[in-house]
């Protein structure tokens, strides 16, 4: 592979993967904070306000990390992927510009009010500022998903005489069916992160024996939201997303499932290692005919395998794609299982004393991050070898003027910078958790 291409790909992949660790919590916590603020208003109980204020502090640190790691993403479309931008900017410039104009202004203006304006706004005004931050962050998510969805399944464009793609239908771009499913699936995944983080911190307090009243609120809110959204993650959103792939990217589906040979009544691989050289699965554990059913709702339906497509249309890294997808699905199933047990215990009023379950909730903390990352890797590796599906190959999209050496220099710079940011983030969040929800709020500056 051309080394400049590889450097630019890793550059984007690394910066976006690190970046998305933060927005998933921002978007996941925002609605949960609205829930806490609503409970505070309804029940007139100060403890919910303390709970909301505590999460607002973590939200603020997390949001800051999301902002500072997010600015490079927009820049990289121009700096590292300039041929792609020249080719597709006439279409996706719409959604990227709309993100800045509609959501960032909303989010940044009201975040300042939400964090620093509780006294000036009063309880109702403060509730509204929390809602505005929630809307801003979710709107931002939509425009980004619409951009990615267009790259996965381009719609609403025409080819201009100079060879670039230009917008022909604004509503087709915004209402791309791929975007609707992907958005639902992605946002549900973000709420799972928010819910598990909240439940894990609550479990930590209960196991520690401090701030237990708050800990119970966190665990209760976290596991209820966690159950609802981990079920939604599977059905209908995951299912809908999967059928989009089956419809528009059948070769991607075949690679995700490592289905080398097309067949009717195709099995679903639960475990096993794809052996790309010999085009088979080593050591498979499979459910007969399940893939046919899940894809086409018929046990005997024919599913196309990789053999139906020329190899230069195959995603290049089939093994990584297969493992990403299976890790995502496996973790999604695990979340449903633990949340079912936790909610059952909550209903029987045993959850807060079931230390083993609290330990499970605490240790679950990293897994939603892994699942969300693996999900995005499935989406992006599955799109290969295309940058814009069926229209532009990834190898044609990077900045030809920026050498591999320059790309490597800035990649190393980001690696160093992000290591420091990650350490600072963990240190500061750990301090907030340590101080607990009853700590006097730190003065803003």
């Amino acid at each position, binding site marked *: 592979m051309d080394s400049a291409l590889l450097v630019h790909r890793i550059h984007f992949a690394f910066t976006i993967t690190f970046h998305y660790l933060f927005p998933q919590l921002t978007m996941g916590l925002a609605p949960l904070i609205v829930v806490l603020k609503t409970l505070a208003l309804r029940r007139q109980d100060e403890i919910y306000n303390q709970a909301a204020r505590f999460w607002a502090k973590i939200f603020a640190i997390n949001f800051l990390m999301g902002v500072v790691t997010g600015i490079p993403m927009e820049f990289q479309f*121009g700096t*590292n992927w300039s041929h792609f931008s020249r080719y597709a900017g*006439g279409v996706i410039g719409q959604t990227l510009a709309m993100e800045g*104009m509609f959501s960032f202004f909303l989010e940044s203006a009201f975040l*300042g*009010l939400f964090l620093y304006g509780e006294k000036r706004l009063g309880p109702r005004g403060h509730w509204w500022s929390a809602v505005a931050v929630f809307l801003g962050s979710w709107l931002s998510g939509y425009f980004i998903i619409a951009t990615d969805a267009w790259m996965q399944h381009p719609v609403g464009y025409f080819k201009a005489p100079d060879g670039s793609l230009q917008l022909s239908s604004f509503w087709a771009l915004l209402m791309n069916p791929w975007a609707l499913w992907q958005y639902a699936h992605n946002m549900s995944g973000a709420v799972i992160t928010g819910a598990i983080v909240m439940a894990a911190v609550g479990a930590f307090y209960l196991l520690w024996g401090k701030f237990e009243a708050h800990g119970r609120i966190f665990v209760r809110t976290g596991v209820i939201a966690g159950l609802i959204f981990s079920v939604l993650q599977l059905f209908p959103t995951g299912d809908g997303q999967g059928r989009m792939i089956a419809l528009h990217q059948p070769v991607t589906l075949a690679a995700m499932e490592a289905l080398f040979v097309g067949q009717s009544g195709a099995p679903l691989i639960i475990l096993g290692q794809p052996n790309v050289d010999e085009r088979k699965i080593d050591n498979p554990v499979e459910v007969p005919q399940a893939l046919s059913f899940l894809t086409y709702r018929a046990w005997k339906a024919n599913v196309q395998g990789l053999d139906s497509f020329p190899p230069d249309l195959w995603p290049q890294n089939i093994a990584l794609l297969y493992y990403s997808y299976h890790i995502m699905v496996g973790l999604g199933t695990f979340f449903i299982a633990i949340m079912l047990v936790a909610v059952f215990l909550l209903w029987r009023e045993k959850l807060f004393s079931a230390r083993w379950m609290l330990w499970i909730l605490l240790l679950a903390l990293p897994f939603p991050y892994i699942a969300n990352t693996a999900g995005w890797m499935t989406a992006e590796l599955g799109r290969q070898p295309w940058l814009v599906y069926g229209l532009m190959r990834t190898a044609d999209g990077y900045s030809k003027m920026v050498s591999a050496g320059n790309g490597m220099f800035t990649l190393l*710079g980001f690696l160093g910078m992000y290591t420091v*940011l990650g350490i600072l983030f963990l240190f*500061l969040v750990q301090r907030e958790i340590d101080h607990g929800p009853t700590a006097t709020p730190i003065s*803003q500056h």
Partner: protein
Amino acid sequence: METVWFMIIALMIAAYAVLDGFDLGAGAIYFGAARTADDRRKILRAIGPVWDGNEVWLVAAGGTLYFAFPLLYASSFSGFYLPLMMVLWLLMLRGIGIELRAHLENPVWVGFFDLVFCGSSVLLAIFFGAALGNVVRGVPLGADGYFFEPLWTNFRVGANTGILDWYTVLTGVIALVTLTAHGALYIAVKTENELNQRVRSVALWAWRLQLILTIVGLIATCYVRPMVLDNYKQHAIGYLIPLVVFGSLGTMIYAIRKELDKLAFVGSALYIVAMLVGAAFALYPVVLPASTDPAYNLTIYNTAAARHGLTVGLTWWIIAMILALAYFTFLFRMFRGKVRLEGEGY
């Protein structure tokens, strides 16, 4: 339609320069003006609730540029690859400098982030000025509309330019001095007593340099790129712009002397807008001149997105802008008035 978007983007960049300019300037004067820990907290409190919103103007202007002139975005961002990446790193450092310093009360921690905040603010002001200098001077564009500039070559202006040469260093310094005055005047509006007096004297000194450098900069620009006068010769109305520049400088000094801080800040904002509008007026319809061959100039016509997209965009852009102005009016009203340290503040 291309012209409309050219004006919109010029105005968004001007809005960014005026808004984020004052908090960059507040960072630049941070150590010079603030003698005590309380002074430093007051300066940060004056910009705390608004800096992030101000910075969004940069992201929004960038996104709008990408949408309206994709080729310009592609060419300039990849051509200015190295300095842009450094701008990104500085923006990151500055963001964490402002937001993280108050998390610990340890004086070394606070001092470290103060240094990060001040240093990154100074460097960003210089980088933004140098970027504008590069755009006015021109870059070595090829026939395919792309270029790549090293950080510096021989510090001379010519065909084989780097990001830094004597001219772009000059524009960088002008930007730093301008934003120093601008930031000092904003802090003057937001503070009282001793700190208020001190930032006003910083503004006075910066103003003197600003006046000299404005004249030097205008002469240098006409020397480096004589074509900048073409549009002015054809449309005499353009000469109003330098009049506004010097009028706003006059307003600033009058208001600083009379201790009318708000008027002085408005004068400084007007100066920034007039300088940027002057540059945009001189360039139009070119958006990135070629130092190699004028035939390779990037203009609003050869870089714009197709007509339908631009038309649709105008509709949502106007809606979004009305909403954004509403939020920001509300935000600045909520946090209006002088900053004080007693109590939890807001």
